[in-house]
């Protein structure tokens, strides 16, 4: 599974094309492509050019501050970091089991986030490519273009996201960067009025989520030649799975499968994740490359996120989403589906599951309880919190000293887990679409489409309705610029 296109033999004689920054993703990244004089592709890399430093500056801070501070990593899915850090700090304060109310409130918050993040990605960021075509007119390849051509789809996307944001606001105190999950429980209960506010809309949300699955399923099935093969590569895949192998975004055990779907490891307590996973550093990107230790860094990389989760679980506990999962598995023909564009389909199945779970929780009386904090147990010095964030498995690992200060932090975020996988997809697309051809804006968007399928969160908050400045320079082997293409 090692890509031949990661490092060219003689890069000094090749010209460089850069997509910088990649647009309609969270954060900043760039793609560089090295071509020879016949436009043949010799090297393709996805670089993450931001350095955040959270693992360092959280050191020396009190552990109870961590869940609030680290969520500032991101403005799109801060709830994931808030909850993963809180789960780690639950361990630190000796709490192995939350009160039923606290766990259900956290789950509600998390499902709200899953709903809003998946809706944002599908409708705002990716639907322009899927509805208009990858090399369609760039001026309408954005959410405004979708709103003009398909107003009802755009409206549902906006309102689905809004509902998810409201769930987060009500459970965490704010739409973005709330403070409600604390070590050992929650600081905020849910009032009857707040629950009823969500209840009045949830049935519509479930219905629209079902429609969204039908939409992407139709788009995918209509063009199997493209959707099953675009950027496709085979790889291992990993996620946590819940009780009885259920799809579970909040808690479970680690399970990894190989590219044929055979189990590599299963039932792994994530407190011991570092016995199973390692990270490799490469000089050309700030993002590390995790891999499964037992397989080594050449064979051990994997993908995470919706496509991994929906195929890794045994079943989904909610009926509509389970029905859709079975259809997806049937479509894949009983073997794992590896097509990056199938991420969209599975992402919508997950959004439907999140909507159904929110509906179930809103009918659960435990949610209205006031028993929010578990009794602290024996103080621990080390804790790991893992959660399935919208983009995949998220690890938070901390050590805390006897004075309550953090001494070590290790975060493996979802997109980091997908690093090698995204690079593979980009190389695959570059080789298939760019090899030997003149570079055009539409062809470059094919590269971005492949990256977007993974919904990478390169840090936080850079969307500009498809108008992200994108500049491509063609440089001859002597370094002279021979052509330039600018999207503004």
């Amino acid at each position, binding site marked *: 599974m090692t890509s031949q296109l990661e490092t060219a033999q003689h890069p000094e004689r090749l010209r460089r094309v850069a997509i910088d920054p990649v647009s309609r993703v969270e954060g900043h990244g760039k793609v560089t492509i090295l071509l020879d004089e016949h436009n043949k592709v010799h090297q393709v890399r996805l670089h993450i050019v931001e350095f955040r430093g959270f693992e360092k500056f959280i050191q*020396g*801070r*009190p552990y*109870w*501050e961590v*869940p*609030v*501070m680290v969520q*500032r990593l991101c403005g799109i899915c801060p709830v994931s970091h808030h909850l993963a850090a809180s789960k780690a700090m639950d361990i630190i304060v000796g709490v192995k089991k939350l009160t039923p109310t606290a766990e259900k409130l956290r789950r509600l918050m998390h499902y709200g986030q899953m709903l809003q993040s998946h809706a944002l990605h599908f409708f705002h960021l990716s639907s322009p490519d899927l509805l208009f075509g990858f090399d369609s007119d760039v001026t309408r390849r954005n959410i405004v273009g979708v709103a003009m051509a398909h107003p009802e789809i755009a409206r549902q996307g906006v309102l689905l996201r809004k509902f998810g944001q409201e769930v987060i606001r009500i459970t*965490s*105190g*704010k739409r973005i*960067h*709330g*403070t*409600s999950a*604390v*070590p050992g429980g929650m*600081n*905020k209960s849910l009032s009857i009025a707040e629950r009823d506010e969500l209840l009045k809309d949830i049935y519509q949300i479930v219905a629209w989520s079902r429609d969204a699955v039908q939409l992407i399923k139709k788009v995918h099935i209509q063009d199997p030649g493209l959707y099953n093969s675009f950027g496709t590569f085979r790889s291992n895949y990993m996620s946590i799975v819940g009780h009885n192998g259920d799809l579970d975004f909040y808690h479970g055990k680690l399970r990894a499968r190989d590219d044929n779907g055979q189990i590599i490891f299963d039932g792994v307590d994530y407190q011991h994740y570092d016995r199973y996973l390692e990270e490799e550093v490469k000089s050309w990107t700030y993002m590390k490359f995790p891999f499964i230790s037992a397989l080594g860094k050449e064979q051990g990389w994997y993908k995470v996120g919706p496509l991994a989760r929906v195929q890794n679980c045994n079943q989904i506990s909610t009926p509509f989403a389970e029905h859709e999962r079975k259809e997806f598995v049937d479509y894949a023909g009983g073997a794992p589906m590896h097509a990056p564009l199938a991420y969209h389909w599975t992402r919508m199945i997950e959004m439907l599951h999140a909507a159904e779970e929110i509906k179930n929780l809103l009918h659960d009386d435990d949610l209205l309880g006031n028993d929010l904090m578990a009794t602290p147990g024996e103080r621990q010095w080390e804790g790991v919190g893992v959660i399935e964030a919208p983009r995949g498995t998220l690890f938070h690992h901390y050590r805390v000293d006897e*004075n*309550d*200060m953090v001494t070590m932090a290790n975060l493996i975020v979802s997109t980091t887990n997908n690093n090698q996988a995204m690079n593979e997809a980009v190389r695959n697309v570059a080789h298939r679409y760019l090899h030997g051809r003149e570079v055009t804006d539409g062809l470059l968007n094919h590269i971005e489409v492949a990256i977007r399928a993974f919904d990478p969160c390169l840090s936080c908050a850079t969307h500009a309705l498809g108008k992200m400045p994108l500049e491509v320079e063609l440089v001859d082997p002597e370094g002279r610029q021979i052509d330039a293409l600018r999207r503004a």
Partner: protein
Amino acid sequence: MTQKFTLDGVLIPFEDGETVMQAATRAGKFIPHLCYHPEFKPHGSCKLCTVKVNGRQAAACTLHVSSGMVVENNTEELNAERRALTQMLFVEGNHFCPSCEKSGNCQLQATAYHLGMMSPHYDHFFPSRPVDASHADFFIDFNRCILCSLCVRASRDVDKKNIFALSGRGIKTHLIVNAASGRLADTDFSLADKAAQVCPVGVILHKRQGFAVPIGERTYDKAAISAQHEPIAEEALK
């Protein structure tokens, strides 16, 4: 109380010996302040309470009222100066409100909101100030100290322990712990101390409380600082 003075054009009654701050507060008029606390002798150091009396500036917390005095308080000119002082306090320390557990209960933050502070304006100093987490129940984050000296006065005048002091001169003034080691763990500081209750910002903090109070129920979520009655710091810590 037949004696009166004029504050922003309104006649305010006062008693002999009262300061402008005391009389104004009793009358429900807000004068921004950080180092003033009704239970302690005024310090007059933060200068947030600067008012204009007969055309001259004075600290409302130390100025005694006299009959017929005309005091300007809530004017754009004075508030602009207070805003600048507040901005300087923000850049002199390391005030990261987004992850600070005192956020929503912090008098500095609430005052900045009251004064319409939209940015720090000045260059940050980014000082290096290690925290003191040595005490079993308390945590001192020197990064947020605004040198109001309330903890110094509380420990010296009420607790009779003299645990805190301001050391250094001018821009190098800083809060210290009076122990040979400089560590709070090596003092007899305790939960019952007045000094444990008066910090208006997030310096002296009870350990393991963190974000126990949800957004919406924090002191300044409920009402702006200008609408709150004294003593603010004690309420904020409950």
